[in-house]
């Protein structure tokens, strides 16, 4: 009886950098694993050439994912992962750009770039991991932090209303907008698999757990406890409307495929397709 000694995803990872820097119980590893499974499926189907895939990450815990994947990858300045990917895709339209970043990187610092890349429907996949704070720098308030949550910079509770990235991108010209959660890795895999087969701007928000920093602020310090609390609140809906996209920790978080369009992408328009 032959025993294999390697994990099935080892061929997609830079093993000299494993184990990752992430804290024990961080949801980012679950999301990365699900994305790599979807990519593995697409590569084995022959739809995607692994030499044409490249990953871009800005600054943050999530953006460090690009260190761990065995693909061409760029680690750029804070919030500027989408402009870097736009430049690379326009210079070489054969490339498949995968942008990963946290909510602080993509929706906070790079929020303007997110809006305009979605408006122009540029060919790239943006996977935003929402953990509700700037985790790497110590838990400052992020644009997605729910109201009344105490963070490092809002010790009396967050007075601001949170931003809803799914609703924002869905109101623009993006071709695919979905939301999954790290407690449902099969949905991350399914949505990312679908996104890899489409063109145009594809946005997937993954609600993640951050037991070390966000969990400490909301009193769920244990990874399993936080995972189970998030799992209780996540509800899958078939084709939910953008009105249901509100992230409300009390009422529940709706996941699913919010938008699916077939608009011509920026590169198709440049090539003189239907404009």
């Amino acid at each position, binding site marked *: 009886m032959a025993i294999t000694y390697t994990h099935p995803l080892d061929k997609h990872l830079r093993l000299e950098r494993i*184990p990752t820097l992430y804290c024990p119980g961080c949801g980012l590893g*679950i999301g990365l694993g699900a994305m790599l499974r979807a990519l593995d499926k697409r590569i084995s189907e022959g739809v995607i050439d692994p030499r044409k895939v490249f990953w871009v990450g800005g600054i943050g815990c999530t953006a460090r994912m690009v260190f761990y994947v065995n693909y061409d990858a760029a680690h750029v300045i804070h919030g500027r992962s989408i402009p870097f990917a736009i430049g690379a895709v326009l210079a070489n339209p054969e490339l498949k750009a995968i942008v990963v970043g946290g909510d602080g990187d993509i929706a906070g610092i790079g929020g303007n770039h997110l809006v305009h890349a979605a408006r122009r429907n540029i060919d790239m996949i943006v996977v935003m991991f929402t953990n509700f704070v700037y985790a790497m720098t110590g838990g400052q308030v992020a644009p997605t932090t729910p109201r009344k949550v105490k963070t490092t910079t809002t010790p009396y509770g967050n007075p601001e209303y949170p931003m809803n990235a799914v609703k924002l991108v869905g109101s623009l010209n993006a071709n695919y907008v979905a939301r999954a959660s790290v407690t449902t890795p099969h949905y991350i895999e399914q949505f990312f698999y679908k996104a890899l087969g489409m063109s145009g701007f594809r946005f997937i928000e993954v609600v993640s757990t951050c037991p070390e920093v966000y969990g400490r602020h909301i009193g769920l310090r244990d990874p399993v406890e936080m995972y189970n609390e998030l799992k209780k609140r996540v509800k899958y809906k078939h084709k939910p409307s953008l009105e249901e996209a509100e992230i409300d920790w009390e009422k529940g978080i709706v996941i699913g495929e919010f938008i699916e369009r077939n608009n011509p992408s920026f590169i198709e328009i440049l090539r003189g397709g239907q404009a």
Partner: protein
Amino acid sequence: MVFTGLTQQSVIGLITRSSSKYRVNIIVDRCKECGICISVCPTKVLERSNILNKYGYHPPEPVNIDKCIGCKLCEYNCPDFAVFIEKVG
């Protein structure tokens, strides 16, 4: 063939146990002891072991291996690529 004892490979540190249908493998030095795999297993196959890995964490151990139904939830939910399941036969 059924593995009853704990097989530990010294080179890569793999905990392997198999039932008649599935084999559960845990890569010892990748585990960070978050406990998610133990929590998500629907049939409670995994338990925290007394083994220490090189970072000082206790990896899980497939104690009730005969209960394994091969759902791979532990493999999908492991944030550190430390658990993988194989089908036997």
